[in-house]
């Protein structure tokens, strides 16, 4: 997610106090194993790494910047030898507190491991280091007619290691699948210091699918140091269209009807009225600001299939009383339409200075009903809500916008957010579609999972991390909080 000029509000609470690790034995050992300038312990520098792009603040004990697998292994070993938790960090764009260090942990920052190691354009795969930025890989392989399919809104700044850790999504994952479907193998520094390759270039070795279990494990199963990704052929033809509707229901019904008709467009994105108004004021793309909902549909592939689907989708939208149809006439217009979608989060700054972005998934058929409840919840708490979301896979992104200087507003945002998660799960949905659990939703896991289900997840994690020091206390609630009460860490808003 790109924050642009709006910034997440920063709470005043710390999750817990820092150890005094600065220039202690851990820092000294790291300076010796890496280099002086790639180990940081000053208060200013540690402060920069005390949280990711979420609102949850922790405390870093030491920050280091390895440049190789051997250095990552050395850093992990030093942390484990000193009983110090360690947290892998990419670009820090995560929204669930997954990379927030707790209790003075060692932050292992992978931004300097940003080389594309090899590209095999024939078999369409590449080996990259974890710090390679998502969009940089796509740009690097464009000359081969290929791209990396997962495309989070933050793709200009998020790293592929971070995509792997969070099993990230993006608008084009509707047709092509999320990150897990595009990661074939990963070299991983295990918490015990072993280096193993999980998965294979062929993607289907015998044995347990440890690669599949590792993807999305939020830094709690080890640190990926080299990643083999599948590359996807660019489509020969792409058409992007916009429909606008008088009601959100009609837009949502159009989405369901397109899928039920046997089409899986490359993207199906929706924005509600408040969001359209904010975006239009920001980019002046000629969007209809009086519409209740705007639906962006993109079809991609060989020309005849694209032309046929375009025609059928327009007919379906008209059957659902769309008010107007706009089909991008050239690449510039297509880029403008997508700019509107991908800068929606930045556009909110024109309305209020702060926002809190949610991420839940509901069955497509439940979209109209859940959206109604989201509006009702926000109204009851006196919070403004804008919706911009991946309608095709039911992935909601309610954006609560507010001014943190208003007294009591944080509590209301917190309460509204939790209610939104609850109504999503109650409607047959899930806690998170692409941002992950981290700290943000850790204590809401019991909404979806019984103690036995959580125990199985804990067993998976324990098989990878025998030390318990890889990004501990994330994702899984402590057994004591598995009951009815949800203990949310200080500073976490859900």
């Amino acid at each position, binding site marked *: 997610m790109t924050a642009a000029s709006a910034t997440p509000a920063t709470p005043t609470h710390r999750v817990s106090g820092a150890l005094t690790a600065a220039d202690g034995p851990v820092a000294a050992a790291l300076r010796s194993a890496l280099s002086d300038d790639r180990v940081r312990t000053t208060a200013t520098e540690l402060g920069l790494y005390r949280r990711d792009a979420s609102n949850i603040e922790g405390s870093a004990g030491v920050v280091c910047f390895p440049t190789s697998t051997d250095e990552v292994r050395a850093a992990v070993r030093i942390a484990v030898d000193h009983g110090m938790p360690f947290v892998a960090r990419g670009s820090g764009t995560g929204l669930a507190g997954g990379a927030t260090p707790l209790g003075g942990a060692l932050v292992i920052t992978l931004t300097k491991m940003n080389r594309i190691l090899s590209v095999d354009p*024939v078999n369409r*795969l590449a080996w990259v280091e974890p710090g390679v930025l998502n969009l940089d890989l796509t740009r690097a392989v464009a000359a081969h007619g290929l791209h990396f399919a997962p495309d989070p809104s933050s793709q200009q700044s998020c790293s592929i290691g971070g995509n792997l850790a969070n099993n990230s999504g993006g608008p084009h994952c509707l047709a092509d*699948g999320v990150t897990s479907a595009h990661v074939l193998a990963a070299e991983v520094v295990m918490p015990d210091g072993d280096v193993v390759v999980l998965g294979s270039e062929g993607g289907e070795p015998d044995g347990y699918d440890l690669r599949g279990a590792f*993807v999305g494990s939020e830094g709690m199963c080890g640190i990926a140091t080299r990643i083999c990704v599948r590359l996807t052929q660019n489509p020969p033809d792409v058409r992007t269209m916009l429909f606008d509707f008088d009601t959100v229901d009609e837009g949502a019904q159009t989405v369901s009807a397109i899928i039920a008709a046997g*089409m899986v467009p490359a993207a199906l994105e929706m924005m509600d009225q408040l969001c359209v108004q904010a975006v239009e004021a920001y980019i002046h793309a000629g969007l209809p600001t009086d519409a209740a909902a705007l639906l962006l549909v993109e079809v991609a592939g060989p020309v005849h299939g694209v032309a046929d689907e375009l025609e059928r989708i327009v007919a379906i939208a008209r059957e659902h009383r769309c008010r107007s149809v706009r089909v991008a006439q050239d690449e510039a217009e297509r880029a403008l339409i997508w700019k509107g979608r991908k800068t929606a989060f930045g556009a909110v700054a024109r309305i209020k200075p702060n926002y809190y972005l949610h991420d839940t998934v509901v069955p497509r058929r439940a979209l109209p009903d859940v959206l109604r409840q989201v509006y009702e919840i926000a109204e009851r708490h006196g919070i403004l809500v804008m919706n911009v979301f991946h309608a095709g896979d039911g992935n909601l992104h309610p954006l609560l916008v507010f001014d943190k200087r208003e007294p009591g507003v944080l509590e209301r945002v917190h309460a509204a957010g939790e209610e939104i998660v609850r109504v999503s799960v109650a409607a047959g*949905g*899930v*806690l998170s579609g692409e941002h992950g659990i981290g700290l943000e939703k850790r204590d809401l896991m019991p909404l979806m999972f019984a103690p036995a289900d959580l125990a199985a997840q804990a*067993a998976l994690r324990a098989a990878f991390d*025998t030390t318990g020091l890889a990004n501990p206390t994330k994702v899984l609630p402590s057994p004591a909080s598995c009951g009815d009460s949800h203990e949310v860490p200080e500073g976490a808003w859900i």
Partner: protein
Amino acid sequence: MDLTAFAAEVGTDDPVTIAGLGTRDGAVAGVRCVSAPSGIEWIQADEMTVSCGAGTPVDELSAALAEVGQRTVLPAGGTVGGALAVGRSGIRRLGDGAVRDVLLQTHYVGADGVVVKAGGPTVKNVSGFDVCRLLVGSQGTIGFLGDVILRTRPIAPHSAWFTAATDDPMAVFAAVHRPVAVLWDGISVHVLLEGHHLDVAEQATRTGLVASDGPPTLPGGRHAVRPADVLAVTSGLRPGAFVAELGMGIVRADADAIPPTPVDPGVAAISRRVKEGFDPTGRLNPGRTA
């Protein structure tokens, strides 16, 4: 689906094995055998999801899904649970994705006889650790699948096999756009194309492919190699005696045609801990390994 009876049948103490139709190895010999519940719970075409008992035959599921113009990526034959437990994709993996990505949610019975839920019901979900990925391909060694929710895909409007005799199969592989399968048997390349009939016809003509009846007969053994090594690995095999899935690194040939890739000790250690964590007494499918 009520799995109380199935969980009771799996029990808590003695060694136990599971079989569907016995298509893919079936039960472990000499061990008490159970079967998962069968039957389709629901099909939600507009969600692209289906829920069924793991004992449901794949072909029964496919027939029911075909009525709404959809299908899953599970290879034909046997039961849904068997196909997932083995976790091997069919020859359509290039276009369809892997069997490993089809399982969205399951209730399985663990070694302690307790019903456990893994995953979630929606096509997009990153809520917690992905136990579903561990179950697919686990050969029933960490839990017995009871019911499942699977992701479905639309059946393409047009689907056709093509072939061409060539000694440069990678040139064909490079020239076709997102084919469903490209197979090479040392003599000819066999390509499955799907989509709009005009696109399929134009691609075939442009690439010099001619219509064929279907894929070649697949030899029994299945070997996983690096995709980049496929031509080198198969150069030592008699043309016609193997079928390689280009881009996927799967070579089907006699079971002893290609030496197996040794398992990395580090990977073996993690796998051992997975087994110990989920089935500490080793009672599920004893003797079998994933």
